[in-house]
């Protein structure tokens, strides 16, 4: 089945283009003048393009809450790069501040359930001599903030925590994080890619805080992202020219356009009943199923299921053939899937992690599509369990 008629249930990977993005794009394409030039130029063309960036910056700051100023928003080429840019800047600044002798005395705390973009920075940080600690994760997938005070050292320069987990939808306890970090005046970085637009963000502009945002998760063009960095956080970073080069004006315009209409409460009101219906139906009609992270507060659109005795990868393929797009684990460049590091960090076995899929929906997902999905899911899970049991028994030829 081609992508044209498939029902899309993988919004956390990338949301469909938001109607506001489409509107912004078509407006810009009609008036080509607005697309000519470099925002850094002095002339009228440059000014016009620069205004698009300013508008977007303003919309984004509004979407983040009161007291947040547009000049605290920095555009990045993606959410991934937002994470990596801020981690690199903070750690490099901390190393520089300690001088030559301080090389081995910078400490970074993060968690094992971060997005791959953050986890990949651990190896890099270690090569610079940064010591890295991982905050434990409860078996329900929530970073355990209660042990954070004990992990803090005088050398702790940065705490990075994912706000809303992309695979399970579990919401981290950020209020406790705020308390610990602000008490010790430690730079706190929140990966807000999956929180933006799904979760009311009550942020304190007085803290040393940075939040990464991603465009493609809210229905802006992919290849767009942003960082919100508070003034006191900026003081801890030596270099704030994060981005060199001409901005992605079209992408940023969509980022601003969608940010302007984000409304987490209204969104949750639409999405939650549909997801509750889905989870309830799955648990009632399929045996041997776990909803990962269900004991916690989760965002309204994400469910991560483990079906005993099946391979999630096979389920994703079989569902795709039937016309439903869901995901399992984390996709790699070649297109194969590895077992989810998030589920492994939550203490699931490799087999359990492999037996999992993520369903994530959005504001335009309709209940009748979920009904259709459920009917196919029941049959497919049953078929896979039977097939895999048969093969395990035979151990060989078909």
């Amino acid at each position, binding site marked *: 089945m081609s992508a*044209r008629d498939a029902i899309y249930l993988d919004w956390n990977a990338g949301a*469909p283009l938001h109607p506001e993005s489409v509107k912004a794009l078509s407006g810009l394409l009609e008036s080509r003048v607005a697309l000519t030039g470099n925002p850094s130029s002095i002339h009228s063309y440059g000014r016009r393009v620069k205004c698009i960036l300013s508008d977007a910056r303003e919309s984004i700051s509004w979407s983040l809450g009161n007291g947040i100023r547009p000049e605290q928003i920095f555009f990045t080429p993606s959410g991934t790069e937002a994470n990596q840019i801020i981690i690199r800047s903070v750690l490099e600044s901390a190393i520089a501040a300690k001088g030559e002798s301080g090389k081995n005395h910078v400490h970074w705390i993060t968690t094992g359930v971060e997005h791959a973009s953050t986890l990949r920075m651990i190896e890099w940080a270690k090569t610079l001599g940064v010591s890295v600690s991982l905050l434990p994760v409860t078996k329900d997938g929530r970073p355990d903030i209660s042990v954070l005070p004990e992990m803090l050292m005088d050398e702790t320069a940065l705490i990075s925590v994912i706000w809303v987990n992309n695979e399970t939808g579990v919401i981290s306890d950020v209020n406790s994080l705020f308390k610990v970090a602000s008490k010790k005046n430690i730079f706190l970085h929140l990966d807000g890619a999956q929180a933006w637009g799904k979760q009311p963000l009550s942020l304190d502009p007085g803290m040393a805080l940075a939040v990464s945002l991603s465009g493609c998760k809210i229905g802006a063009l992919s290849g767009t992202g942003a960082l919100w960095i508070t003034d006191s956080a900026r003081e801890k970073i030596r270099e704030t020219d994060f981005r060199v080069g001409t901005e992605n004006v079209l992408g940023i315009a969509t980022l601003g356009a969608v940010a302007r209409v984000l409304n987490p409460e209204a969104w949750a009101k639409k999405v939650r009943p549909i997801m509750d219906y889905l989870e309830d139906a799955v648990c009632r009609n399929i045996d041997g199923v776990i909803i990962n992270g269900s004991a916690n507060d989760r965002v309204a659109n994400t469910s991560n299921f483990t079906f005993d005795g099946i391979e999630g990868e096979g389920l994703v393929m079989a569902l795709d053939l039937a016309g439903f797009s869901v995901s399992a684990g984390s996709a790699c*460049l070649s297109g194969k899937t590895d077992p989810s590091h998030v589920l492994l960090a939550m203490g699931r076995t490799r087999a359990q992690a492999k037996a999992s899929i993520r369903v994530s929906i959005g504001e335009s997902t309709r209940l009748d599509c979920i009904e259709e999905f459920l009917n196919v899911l029941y049959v497919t899970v049953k078929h896979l369990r039977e*097939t895999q049991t048969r*093969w395990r028994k035979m151990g060989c030829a*078909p």
Partner: protein
Amino acid sequence: MAKDGVRSMSKQIDRIKILVAMSGGVDSSVTAALLKKQGYDVVGVHMLLSEPVTACGAKLTGRCCSPIDSCDARRVCEKIDIPFYVIDAKDAFRGKVIDNFIHEYLSCRTPNPCIQCNSEIKFKFLFEKADELGCESIATGHYAQIRHDAIAGKYRLFKALDPQKDQSYFLFGLTQVVLKRVLMPLGAFPKTLVRKMADEMGLSVANKEDSQEICFVGDGEYKDFIENQTAETLRLKGLIRTTNGQIVGEHDGLHRYTVGQRKGLKLITNDPGRFFVVGFDSLNRALIVGTEEELFRKDLFATGVNWITHVDGLRPIKCKARIRSQHKEAACVVTLFENDTVRVEFDEPQRAITPGQAIVFYDEEEVIGGAVIDRLLSLE
């Protein structure tokens, strides 16, 4: 883009669903395209078989794998509008093919990993995936022909029409249960025509080079691969002896040699060019060399026999046999023993019969069965 509409499920149920094993090369791409044209419901699957290796042989960092081949396969599938998936088969391939390859060399045999891959991965591991996806058959880009004998109710395997490309030798291990579910649509086409079809269908791989002989060894030599993968204690050095017992040199580990080899022996004797590897004395870790005449032998034992056509086990079978992929098959008599073992006696002596290689039995164009050469009849 997401379109949340109500669709009918029925249209997917009518058509026969076929999984095509796609390497990213031109043959499997054309296979998929042909089947799609014929109206089948085709699903493309690319198996990741081994760790990604860069052109210079270094391991790529990160977890991603031969992206060029999977990308090529994906682009073809997009072009012909079929679904495409990448399946991680690395563990199975490691266990069933690479480990076997290493073990065989360390046991003084010369393995054929393509045959092992066909019987263990393409036509076993992949069938589980096919079942999961509800595919009735698996199609590959192999050059061989499978025909259904309606009278006998059996499937039969024949050489490809293009003798240059014939791959039937590598497929002797297919059983009736497997053959029933396998399609090889390229068996009746010459390779030049396959490339032409790829070009006409606008497939981006039309001019892609054919794949290497041993895909997981990369650009280097198999010897280096084995040495990288095994402990030195498993690769003991020893002496080189002639068939008369005369010591003529030292060797760097028996895995570095294969029957019939002449190059790289470094013999200390008057006329080193006269000698070929004729066998191994693994007990004494010795490499046995002999003259070219001594390479020619008539009798062998082979194990793990698989008969595709029915044979009468009570009497000797007269047929032709091929002892390596490029060998011209020769007349022989096959006698069946218990435990899937056969004794083969060629009418004329054959050059460099090599334990570990397959011996495949032909009746003219048809593959009637095959086995793995275990040993020659009394070397000395």
